[in-house]
């Protein structure tokens, strides 16, 4: 056995890659996790985590230089001074936008598990059955019961805090104690409940921040600085959770700066024998061999790896025989919602910064309702007291203005929608052979957009938000909406979907590539539809389930 040979290879170290590494190593497989970016060591490398806001040169804002260097990231809130280092260098790793697509990436150990928003929701059978029922895309080859035990498994290990709300469309999970709503949210919740009874629900967010100590991790200290990296390991990330567990087995090797350029496919065995790696620092090429390969580079990059693989057999790459590889790009569309003012509670404030908000699960197109669009949306939001720096009506300069700046302002409540997008075959990513990245590798071109169904849904997303807030007693409600842009939801999915038929899907019910049974794709690429819940918990569950199957098949000698 050469020292480049392992039992398993995991491509990518983000949320799904970390899970694959943990599950495979815990089941005894010698595993190497290949990560294209630099290493970021837990706690030690969270260099900004303990700084006060005043310690940042521009107090967290963005400079002109940052705006020039990050033409994509600048389009939304992620471009900021405090964790700039965690975002992909756009000059080194460009992509082509046939239509605007906001791709917010993180190329480093832990991937976007370091910066994610941690909202974690299960899917429901309504979601798994939707494609079949609507005759859209391809039917999911699994149902809720197939994933339910793996959701539990993922929740118990990751540590998801939440309330068992008993909302039919949003199954309860194995939760840690929920975070508290603040006084204004409780007030809105009460009036919301009086008005909507059980037709709609207003619940505390379910989040991957632990509220009790767990596996040597300290419970959340309410700092709300999560995306700098948490010195307490209080939110789920590769570094805080899956990586230490995988390392503890003694079976894991981690190799940063390792860009997997292709999966090595063996025509005779019809299986992968390993991967080719380009060392991002030295530009040297290496090969690594293994019995199974888990592809976890995140939806678009996993498709990119597949497109570059086995091109001597299939021109479009491994998995392209279905005609679906790179197609059906999905995301959640957002940037639409409402907010307003809450009267009273002037004598109350919140202490601590809760890294969570409230959630209103989907209620549209359920129980026989038929809007002029299909599927639905949920909302995330919260109540807060206005910042110190608001304008004070009369006093605009001088000593008393200065004093007034430190008085808290009025209470506000706001929320924004997350809408389901449909899997459109023509929404796709493909290799742009005309351009190369810093390493001379072909880059992706992305050609995807929101269509009629999403646009119609957004009208409800805006109007419903206003109506619900008003019904719950919020005053001076303002709505907002925007041109829907894919990518902006940071929930890319669908580029190597699961299905029941190799002619219309890239992966089978166990996330195996139909054309190479020892290759498993378990990140967002696998999704056959998008639902409207934040997706990462589902990637965790799918990954753990596939890893369990892979090891069993390996032991049986089937792969």
């Amino acid at each position, binding site marked *: 056995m050469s020292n480049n040979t392992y039992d398993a290879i995991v491509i990518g170290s983000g949320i799904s890659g970390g899970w694959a590494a943990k599950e495979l190593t815990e089941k005894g497989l010698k595993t190497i996790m290949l990560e294209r970016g630099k290493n970021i060591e837990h706690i030690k490398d969270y260099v900004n985590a303990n700084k006060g806001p005043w310690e940042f*040169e521009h107090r*967290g*804002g963005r400079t002109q230089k940052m705006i020039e260097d990050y033409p994509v990231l600048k389009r939304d809130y992620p471009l900021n001074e405090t964790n700039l280092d965690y975002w992909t260098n756009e000059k080194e790793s460009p992509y082509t936008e046939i239509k605007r697509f906001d791709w917010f990436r993180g190329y480093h150990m832990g991937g976007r598990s370091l910066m994610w928003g941690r909202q974690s929701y299960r899917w429901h059978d309504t979601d798994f059955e939707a494609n079949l029922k609507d005759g859209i895309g391809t039917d999911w080859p699994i149902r809720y019961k197939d994933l339910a035990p793996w959701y539990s498994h993922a929740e118990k290990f990751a540590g998801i805090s939440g309330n068992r709300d008993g909302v039919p469309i949003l199954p309860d999970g194995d939760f840690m104690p929920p975070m508290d709503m603040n006084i204004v949210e409780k007030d809105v919740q009460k009036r919301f409940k009086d008005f909507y009874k059980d037709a709609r629900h207003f619940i505390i967010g379910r989040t991957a921040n632990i509220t009790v100590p767990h596996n040597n991790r300290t419970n959340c200290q309410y700092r709300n600085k999560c995306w700098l990296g948490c010195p307490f390991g209080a939110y789920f990330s590769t570094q805080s959770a899956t990586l230490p567990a995988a390392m503890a087995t003694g079976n894991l090797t981690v190799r940063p700066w390792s860009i997997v350029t292709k999966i090595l496919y063996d025509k005779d065995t019809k299986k992968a024998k390993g991967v080719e790696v380009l060392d991002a620092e030295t530009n040297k090429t290496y090969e690594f061999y293994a019995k199974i390969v888990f592809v976890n580079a995140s939806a678009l990059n996993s498709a990119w790896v597949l497109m570059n693989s086995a091109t001597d057999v299939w021109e479009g790459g491994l998995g392209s025989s279905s005609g679906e590889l790179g197609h059906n790009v999905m995301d959640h569309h957002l940037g639409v919602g409402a907010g307003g003012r809450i009267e009273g509670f002037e*004598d109350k404030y*919140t202490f601590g910064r809760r890294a969570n908000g409230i959630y209103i699960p989907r209620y549209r197109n359920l129980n026989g309702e038929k809007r002029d669009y299909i599927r639905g949306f949920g909302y995330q939001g919260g109540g807060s007291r206005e910042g110190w720096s608001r304008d004070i009506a009369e006093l605009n*300069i*001088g000593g008393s203005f*200065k004093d007034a700046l430190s008085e808290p302002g009025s209470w506000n409540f706001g929320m924004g929608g997350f809408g389901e997008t449909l899997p459109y075959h023509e929404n796709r990513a493909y290799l742009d052979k005309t351009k190369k990245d810093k390493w001379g590798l072909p880059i992706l071109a992305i050609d995807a957009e929101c269509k009629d169904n999403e646009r119609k849904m957004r009208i409800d997303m805006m109007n419903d938000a206003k109506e619900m807030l008003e019904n719950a007693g919020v005053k001076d409600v303002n709505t907002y909406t925007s041109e829907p842009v894919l990518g902006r939801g940071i929930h890319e999915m669908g580029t190597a979907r699961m299905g029941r038929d190799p002619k219309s899907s890239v992966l089978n019910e166990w996330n195996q590539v139909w054309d190479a049974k020892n290759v498993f794709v378990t990140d967002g690429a696998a999704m056959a539809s998008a639902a409207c819940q934040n997706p990462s918990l589902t990637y965790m569950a799918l990954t753990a389930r596939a890893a369990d199957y892979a090891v069993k098949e390996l032991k049986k000698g089937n792969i």
Partner: protein
Amino acid sequence: MNRRAAIRNMALIMGSAVVLPSCLHDDKGKAVVELKHLKIDADQEKLVNSLTETILPKTDTPGAAELGINLFVFKMLDDCTSKEQQADFITGLGGFADEAKKQMGKSFADGTDKERTAFVTQMEQHSKDKNYKDNAKSMAFYQMVKGQTIFGYTTSKFFMTKQVVYELVPGRYNAMYPAKKAMA
């Protein structure tokens, strides 16, 4: 604190935002604050410094100058605004200086607290007047300075630790904290 010491302290706080010039007393009209993009002279610098202090003056708590907010304003304008905004800033700075001089009979920085406050209060009134035409860009200039002054103040260590209670590690979330206790 003398000026040199104040600037040196500020440089430490802001991660050497300010490079000390070789001689602070050479009165050739060169600004003390070192900027990469904006070109301003000593008089213009003085004007901005006194404007930030007029917006947030020293009372029984420190004002803009003592907290180094003026330097922060320059840093932000220099690093974080576009070429167009910087051009407006320079034009508006000139416009503001001229208008102030006309009205006060002396440069803005040489005005008394009262005179400066009166002039800036008038700017505030203009800002609420829909028919006001900002021909000299002095309003654009003023709004930029004011915005950054307030931002700098409300994110300063003094403000966040002495004026309001900001704890780096709260350790708990109290959803119904009495508002009074949130203010030191």
